[in-house]
Each structure stands twice: as structure tokens, then as C-alpha cells.
């Protein structure tokens, strides 16, 4: 426990101090890293802790992003308020989607959510919605400046805002998974029938988890819209869902701090692969991924927990 607390504290201090030492561009990259980490954390709650597969989280990310963009663009609502709004909208959508998903398990659920991911970009382009979504052209978002005259650039302000959101959501997720509810989620993952016979309301917990997971990803989407200043249907393709899943697996299934490692992987490794070979960047990325899965089959989380075990056994 103390090791975890110390690590968390060191991480927080570093995260708070770092913008003063780096350029605006790297600050922007780190902000994107935190945003992806929130989305990965959301997917991990669903897939890692509750055992429900989703290839549709790009859809929730998109809904969050569009909720934020439309609220700011059409209704002039302050960007801060779009974050809880995006979370609520996505919670509702995820919760409702969770009901039909109850009947589906494993690969079948993956297929249903895949449908969600494929459909969303095209739905966003539909003419009846164009007044709101801007169709193919997307929606522009104004970049916010630091409030209260804080001596921060807007990149730095957005970084701290995202960091605050990340820390808050991390603590909530941590409390959730270590609580009674968390144990119920794990029980459902391990054996739904046993869980039910112990008196756990399986369908309620499953749909609620879907909602919470979607809410996390939606908040990440809203932050993404604010930081990128632009949303368009092409930003939220099926590949984004796969990217989130890669982040979950690399970071470690059912290990919350892994979200940071997973996010760093999906953000930086494609750039690294491109540096090695432009023409074969996809192939290089693929090979790195295969090697990684061979070396650490349970992701970064697996490595850390076995290292901790070794340390403790001494």
C-alpha cells in the first residue's frame, strides 16, 4: 500500500511540475496522453473489471466530443460545464445500450459494439443532423484561455484542467473498484451465475458499468474536442476503438494506473514507428505490438504486480 501511495504522490508532483519545463507542443502531447488515459480507464472498467468487451468506445468518445462542441457552438455554454454534460449524455447512452448488450456475451457483444463504432461517423454526417454537427465539415471550438488571470498559457491551462479531471476520475474509479460494487463487478466477470446466486443483481450492475464506462470515455471525448478545437466525423473511426483496446491491454487488464502507460503507448509508439520507416510504419507498429504481447502477455500491469510480489516476498 505504501509503495502505491508513494508512486501516486511522485506521479502527481511530477505531473504538476512538468509544464514549466517543457514546450507548448509537449504540453499538448501530454494533455492528449491524459485524455486517452481517461478513455482507457473507462474502457478498462467495462472490459477489465466487468469482463464485457467493447469495440464501440470510439462512439462514446465521439458523442462526448460532439456534446461538448455543440453545447459551446450552438448554446454558448462555458467549456467547463460541457464536461459533466458530456459525461451525463454518455452515461445515458451507455446505460441504454447496456440493456440489449445484456443478452450478448464475449464475441457477440464485441460485434454489437463494433456496429456502434462503424455507424457513428456516418450518422454524424447525416443531413438532418447537419445543422448541429456541421456534417463532414465538423464543428470548430474556441480554445479557452486560463481563467482568473492565472499566469498560464492556454496549453498549460488545458493540461492542468485535464490533469484535474484525470485525478478526480481516477480516485472515483479506484474507490469504485475497491468497494462492494467493485467486488460485485469482479464476481460477475469471473462467474455470472455464481454472482447471481450470491444475490448480485447482474443485469443492473452490467448496465450501470456500461453507463459509467461510457461516461468516462465521453468526458475524455469532450476534453479532446476542447484541446483539438475541432470535431469531425472522420476523427472517430473504428480504429479509435481498437486504439483504446490496445491501450487497455498494454497498460494491463483491470489495473487502473496502466491507463497512463497504455495511453503513452498509443500516443508515442506510432510516431516512433514512423521515425523508423515511413512506408512501413503500420508494419513496425504491428511488430512492436506482437513483441510486447509476447514479452508481457498481461500488459504493464502484469509486470508491475509480479515485481511487487518479488519485492514483498523478500
Amino acid at each position, binding site marked *: 500500500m505504501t509503495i502505491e501511495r508513494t508512486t501516486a504522490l511522485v506521479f502527481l508532483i511530477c505531473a504538476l511540475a512538468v509544464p514549466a519545463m517543457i514546450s*507548448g507542443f*509537449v504540453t499538448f502531447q501530454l494533455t492528449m496522453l491524459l485524455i486517452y488515459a481517461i478513455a482507457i480507464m473507462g474502457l478498462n472498467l467495462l472490459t477489465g473489471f466487468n469482463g464485457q468487451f467493447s469495440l464501440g468506445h470510439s462512439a462514446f468518445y465521439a458523442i462526448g466530443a460532439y456534446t461538448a462542441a455543440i453545447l459551446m457552438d450552438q448554446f454558448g455554454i462555458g467549456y467547463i460545464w460541457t464536461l459533466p454534460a458530456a459525461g451525463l449524455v454518455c452515461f445515458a447512452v451507455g446505460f441504454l445500450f447496456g440493456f440489449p448488450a445484456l443478452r450478448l456475451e464475449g464475441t457477440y457483444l464485441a460485434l454489437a459494439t463494433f456496429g456502434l463504432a462503424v455507424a457513428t461517423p*456516418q450518422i454524424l454526417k447525416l443531413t438532418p443532423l447537419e445543422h448541429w454537427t456541421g456534417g463532414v465539415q465538423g464543428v470548430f471550438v474556441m480554445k479557452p484561455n486560463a481563467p482568473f488571470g492565472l499566469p498560464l498559457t492556454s496549453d498549460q491551462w488545458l493540461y492542468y484542467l485535464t490533469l484535474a479531471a484525470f485525478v478526480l476520475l481516477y480516485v472515483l474509479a479506484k474507490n469504485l473498484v475497491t468497494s462492494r460494487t467493485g467486488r460485485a463487478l469482479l464476481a460477475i466477470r469471473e462467474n455470472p451465475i455464481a454472482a447471481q446466486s450470491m444475490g448480485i443483481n447482474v443485469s443492473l450492475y452490467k448496465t450501470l458499468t456500461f453507463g459509467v464506462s461510457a461516461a468516462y470515455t465521453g468526458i475524455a471525448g469532450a476534453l479532446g474536442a476542447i484541446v483539438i478545437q475541432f470535431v469531425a466525423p472522420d476523427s472517430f473511426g473504428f480504429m479509435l476503438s481498437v486504439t483504446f483496446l490496445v491501450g487497455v491491454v498494454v497498460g494491463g487488464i483491470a489495473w487502473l494506473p496502466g491507463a497512463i502507460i497504455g495511453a503513452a503507448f498509443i500516443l508515442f509508439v506510432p510516431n516512433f514507428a514512423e521515425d523508423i520507416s515511413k512506408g512501413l510504419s503500420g508494419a513496425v507498429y504491428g511488430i512492436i505490438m506482437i513483441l510486447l504481447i509476447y514479452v508481457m502477455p498481461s500488459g504493464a500491469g502484469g509486470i508491475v504486480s509480479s515485481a511487487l510480489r518479488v519485492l514483498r516476498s523478500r
Partner: protein
Amino acid sequence: MQKLHGSTLRLAAAVTLAAAAMSASAAFAEGKYDVGASDTEIKMGHFNPYSGPVSAWGTVGKLQSAFWKKINEEGGINGRKINFISYDDAYSPPKAVEQSRRLVESDQVLGLFNPMGTASNLAIQKYMNGMKVPQIFVSSGAIAFGNPSVYPWTMGWLNYASEGRVYARYLLEQKPDAKVALFYQNDDFGKGFVNGFREALGDKAKTMIVGEASYEISEPTIDSQIVTLKATGADVLFNMSSPKFAAQAIRKLADLNWKPMHFLTSSSAQIGSTLGPAGLENSVGIISTNYYKDSTDPRWKDDPAMQNWNAFMDKYYPEGDKTDTTNVYAYLVSETIAQVLKQAGDDLTRENVMRQAANLQQFSTPLLLPGVTISTSATDYFPIEQLQLIQFNGHTWDFIGGVIDGSAE
């Protein structure tokens, strides 16, 4: 007489320019630079999809890398070597923002030249203009990239509207009593052509356009739209659809035995992706446009420009596909960028690069079709607006009429 007058003018202009250049070089013997340029180097930024579903377009970046290598071997531009930095955005707007910020803030390039994709470029437009960094010759047909009063640092290349105007101007001249049926993709792509077409028809649009039908990309077939349009009694079909739907339309026309004068957008006028699948015999008579020489057209086999291009491909980009006309396009854009940098001389500030990009005067390279020239001005941010009409004869494309200018009036 007029010719003489023209050449005298040009001579006068040349003398003035030379004088201006001399005084400029005297005043700024050291050269004027913004970040990204120096006495020895010009740093250029670029992105396009090297990975992802449309990675085939990555050939543009690869060809341009090869092009600048050639330029550097030949001594660079005004003695400065080109450092061409090109990144992958995988056709994703958020990635494009990240790569552009890396190019501008971390690599410190002079500007972005020929970045690709409508959504990706829209995503960075505000940022580039906020930073006052050139975003030149955007590879997209959207009208949004030629709006100098709002976005003075963003310049397009061509746009759908001017192609629409070219068809309209041809029609007004050849067939002013035509009854036109509009068929288009219901997004900025299809509507772009239609807007230009309507605008150039002017008051006559109301009487000439007798029917219109659009489709969504998600629709499986467009048969019913074509049937409806035939029923209007139109004798001209203005077909602004993407390749798959264009092929369906051509087939349906043949099935219905409807033979209108058929305008097809240049985006779909490819033998491989559209006319072949639709049936070459069904495609005879289709009219479209082009502005550069097609590397697969036997007409240019002995053309010096095409031979030059072939030699370049063999030497600098041997893995490139010579039947892919995208590689001709990429070469042509690079030549135009080189011209802008040449014109900028020793004043390599971002402002001057932008000023020179907006000061191309009837620039011509041998890969352009005869008669097509490139012009821009402080109010005209679309270099390519002159187009040659072409008609399919069952095997290749024939030229019809002269080059038509598609600029707005």
C-alpha cells in the same frame, strides 16, 4: 500589334523586377529570415496519410521527398537546401493537429506545404492562422481554403466550384437551351460543384435546371434517382458523384437507354475506378475536365515533359507507380512550391512566402495541359482554376474546345 504590346509590357515588367531585385539584394545582402529558413536551408513541413485506409495517397509525400532530393542535388533553391519534413496523420484530424504542432513548434518549419485532406486541414486552419504560419496549396477541393479575408495564411490548390463553373460556361456556349438534371453526392463535395454550376449559369439556372436528385454515401444504390431524373425530360446530366456511384449511374443510364450529354466530375473520371467497372462502351461520350498530363495517355509518350518526369521517376522514385497520375499531380505541386520559394528570393519570411504564393502570374510548367496556367492574387487563393474539357472516346480522352477559366466573376 497586341502581341508586341504584350511583350513590351513583359520586358518592362522584367526590367522593373530586376531593378527591384537588385535594390532588394543590396538592402538585404544577408537575407531576411523567419524561423525555418537560413542562408543555407529552408525547412518545409508536410503531412499526409502514410498509414490507414487511404494510405495510397501517401505516394504524394514520397514523391515530394524524392523531388526535393533532386532539387538539392541540383544545388537547391537560390542556393539553399530544402529540408522536407513529412509526417503521417493517418487521415485523422486529431493526429493532423498533433503533427502540425510538432512541425511548427518543435521542428520549427517555415510553413506547411501541400498538407492533405479536407478534415485534417480544417482542423489546423485556425491554429495555423493564429500562429501566422503559411498553410499553402492544401490538397483538397473544399472552398474553405480560399478565403483570404478570414484566413490569410491558408491557400488552397483547386476547388470544386470552379470545375462546376467550367461545365456551366461550356454549356452556355454550346447548348444554351439545355434542360439540365443535377445528380450529386449530398455533402460539401457534391454541393461544391453544384454551387459553382448554378452561380455561373446565373439567371438562366432557373429555366435550365429541370430536375435534381442527391444521394447519401450510405445508400446502396442510386437507381431510383436516375429513373426520376430521366422522367424530367432532361437532355443534360450533371453527374457529381464519387466513383462507385458514378459507375452505377453510367450503368443505369445504359439500362434505361437514356443518352443525355453527360458531365462527370474529374474526381470520378478515371478509367480504372469508374469507367471500366461501368463498361467502357457505356461510357463513350462522357465529358469531364483535367489540367495536367495523364501519364497513362499514349498521346504524351514522346512529350519532353513526360519523358523528363519518367526519367525522374526512374532515378529518384523507382518504387513509385508510373500509372498512378497522383504522382504527376505531386510533381506539379512541388514545382509550383519551388516557384514560390524562388520568387521569395532572399526574403524568406513567412509573410513574404505567403505574399509570393499569392503572386503567381500565369506560371506554367510543361506538365500542365497546353494553355493551362497558374495564377493567384491577394484575393484569389486558388491556383488551379483553368481546366481543359475532355471527352471519352471508348479508349482514351479527347480534348474538346479550348481551356476554360473557372474563376468566380
